[in-house]
């Protein structure tokens, strides 16, 4: 046994050394990123994404640090939450608990860890955690170690209530991602989507990982296209609640709902301008579906498109100076970009006979759903029409893309497992993961646009 393990560790030595250097390169990068935040922040993921190797991380059960063992379920719940976060992040390969060989006597501090137990199973990073409860008060700490050097890379404590355990763990997870990459993780973001579990189309909200589901509307009719405001305190959606399509604004703090636009004909496909003060939507008051700019009280400010064709699904560039939208002016639905300064319109998509639902990311890429072989797939493209990239392939229909607030992740609905569910993936399409598993279909996701 001993011989075997030594042999194993020797064979692992080389890999470990590589991983070690990788980690140091990463840490160095973080230093650089901190100095040149804007430019390098984007480069990091873009450079790394095509050939990025996932870092293997072990996350054993948390330890109870107090005297009385209150809420013992948290021992495995905490590592479960953060393992899932790390898996969804795309940066890590979380090791299987069954492969852990560490004895029960070990602790969560550097001195109480036998790092060889972790290097032997191929872990590059080790996340140890512990918690303590006093009644419903909860204190949880997490420590991240580099297994090769035994160095602690991160250590923090979070305080809160037992019922906030998911939130606290997400917060620590975000912090760890920030330590390793220089960008906050997406673990505290939320997702709104259309769900059909009641037999109607209603708006639901969940955490980004599909947990903590809440039904927002109960109109017993068709409600569509939820879109979070940039600050996340409001949401707009279109509903047939009062016969035809009407645009509503839902105050997520007060819970109040107001009609924004109930003009004759369509009031659909609304989107926020990044300043949070204006909306663009499709109206048919002129007899033809055109895109208009309105303020948040519903007053028309400007007609943005004038064309005989259908113009829908607007989305603004992060600086608010351009707007991508769908139009069938050339015969079939395609994505166009309107320059709001000089009013010039340019066609963005040329491949495929049906390209729709563009969404503009904070990293200045446009995702859309396109069909060429009868199935819809997610693509991303640069706003200048270059660098078309296919995100999904041969996995059922994939539609309704939306971006995470930092533009590093993409969410969409896919029927690859039967019904439509929400999936998230890295911006480049890697690491596709199903996050909603609810009854019926889950469609048209909208990701909160602020990172807490």
């Amino acid at each position, binding site marked *: 046994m001993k011989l075997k393990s030594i042999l194993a560790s020797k064979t692992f030595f080389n890999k470990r050394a590589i991983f070690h250097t990788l980690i140091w390169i990463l840490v160095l990068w973080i230093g650089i990123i901190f100095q040149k935040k804007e430019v390098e922040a984007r480069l990091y993921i873009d450079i790394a994404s095509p050939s990025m190797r996932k870092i293997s991380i072990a996350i054993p059960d948390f330890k109870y640090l107090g005297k009385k063992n209150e809420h013992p379920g948290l021992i495995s719940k905490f590592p479960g939450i953060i393992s899932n976060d790390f898996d969804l992040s795309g940066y890590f390969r979380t090791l299987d608990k069954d492969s852990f060989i560490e004895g029960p006597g070990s602790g969560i501090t550097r001195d109480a860890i036998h790092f060889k137990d972790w290097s032997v199973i191929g872990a590059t990073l080790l996340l140890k955690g512990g918690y303590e409860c006093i009644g419903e008060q909860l204190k949880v700490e997490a420590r991240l170690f580099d297994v090769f050097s035994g160095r602690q890379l991160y250590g923090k404590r979070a305080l809160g209530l037992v019922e906030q355990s998911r939130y606290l763990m997400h917060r620590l997870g975000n912090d760890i991602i920030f330590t390793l990459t220089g960008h906050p993780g997406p673990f505290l973001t939320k997702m709104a989507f259309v769900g059909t579990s009641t037999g109607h189309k209603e708006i639901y909200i969940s955490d980004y990982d599909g947990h903590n589901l809440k039904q927002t509307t109960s109109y017993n009719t068709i409600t*569509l296209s939820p879109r979070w405001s940039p600050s996340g305190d409001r949401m707009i959606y279109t509903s047939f609640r009062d*016969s035809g399509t009407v645009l509503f604004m839902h105050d997520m703090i007060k819970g109040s709902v107001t009609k924004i636009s109930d003009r004759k004909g369509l009031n659909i496909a609304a989107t926020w301008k990044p300043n949070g003060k204006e909306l663009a939507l499709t109206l048919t008051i002129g007899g033809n579906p055109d895109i208009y700019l309105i303020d948040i009280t519903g007053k028309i400010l400007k007609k943005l498109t004038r064309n005989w064709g259908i113009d*829908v699904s607007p989305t603004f560039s992060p600086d608010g100076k351009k707007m991508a939208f769908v139009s069938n002016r050339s015969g079939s639905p395609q994505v166009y970009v309107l320059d709001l300064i000089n009013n010039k319109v340019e066609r963005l998509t040329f491949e495929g006979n049906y390209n*729709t639902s563009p969404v503009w990311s904070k990293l200045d890429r446009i995702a859309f759903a396109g069909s060429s072989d009868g199935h819809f797939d997610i693509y991303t493209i640069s706003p200048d029409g270059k660098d078309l990239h296919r995100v999904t392939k041969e996995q059922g229909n994939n539609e309704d893309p939306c971006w995470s607030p930092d533009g590093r992740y993409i969410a969409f609905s896919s029927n690859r497992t039967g019904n439509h569910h929400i999936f998230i993936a890295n911006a480049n399409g890697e690491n596709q993961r199903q996050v909603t598993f609810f009854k019926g279909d889950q469609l048209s996701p909208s990701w909160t646009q602020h990172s807490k």
Partner: protein
Amino acid sequence: MKRNLIIATLVVFACSFIFLLSSCAKKQVITEEKEIKAPPKEVAKVEKEKPPVEKEKEAEIERAERVRLERLKELEFAKKREAEAIEAWKERRAIKFEAESIYFDFDKSFIRTEYRPDLKKKAGYLKDNPNINIRVEGNCDERGTSEYNLALGERRANSAKEFLLSLGISPDRIDTISYGEERPLASGHDEGSWAQNRRDDFVIIKK
């Protein structure tokens, strides 16, 4: 006992006698009838058919009157039946009006040639029934986004509306709504189902 027997034989005799007489001479029958108090209907009729000339005339007038009344009744009945039939026909036509949807090509909103006669019929119905308004409901198949399809459904509803307007129907009698891809008729995910879902429905709204 003896008396009874005698009465019985007398009755039998009488009956056979009457039977014989009635087949030979009708005049005598009359008297005999009265005695027996059981005149067969046929016999009674025969009696009436033999009135004096004036009586015959009266009877004829009566008969003519009866026939006239009967005819009148029949006429009224026929009228009623016809009215009912028209009503039913109208109803059928109305149902047909609602049941007959028109269908569209994928991602298109123009009225296909084969549905033009249907729309002409619908216009005719609307002209015959000035007291009704209609709503045209545009629908799409599931492909594409719900947003684009809402716009496409609106266009499909408007295409039918425009067509009806061109045939002289007043615009305030036709309402339109788009349900996009939200109200599929067929739930399949193939061209057979999609073709049924790319349609305009026509709903009658009473004024």
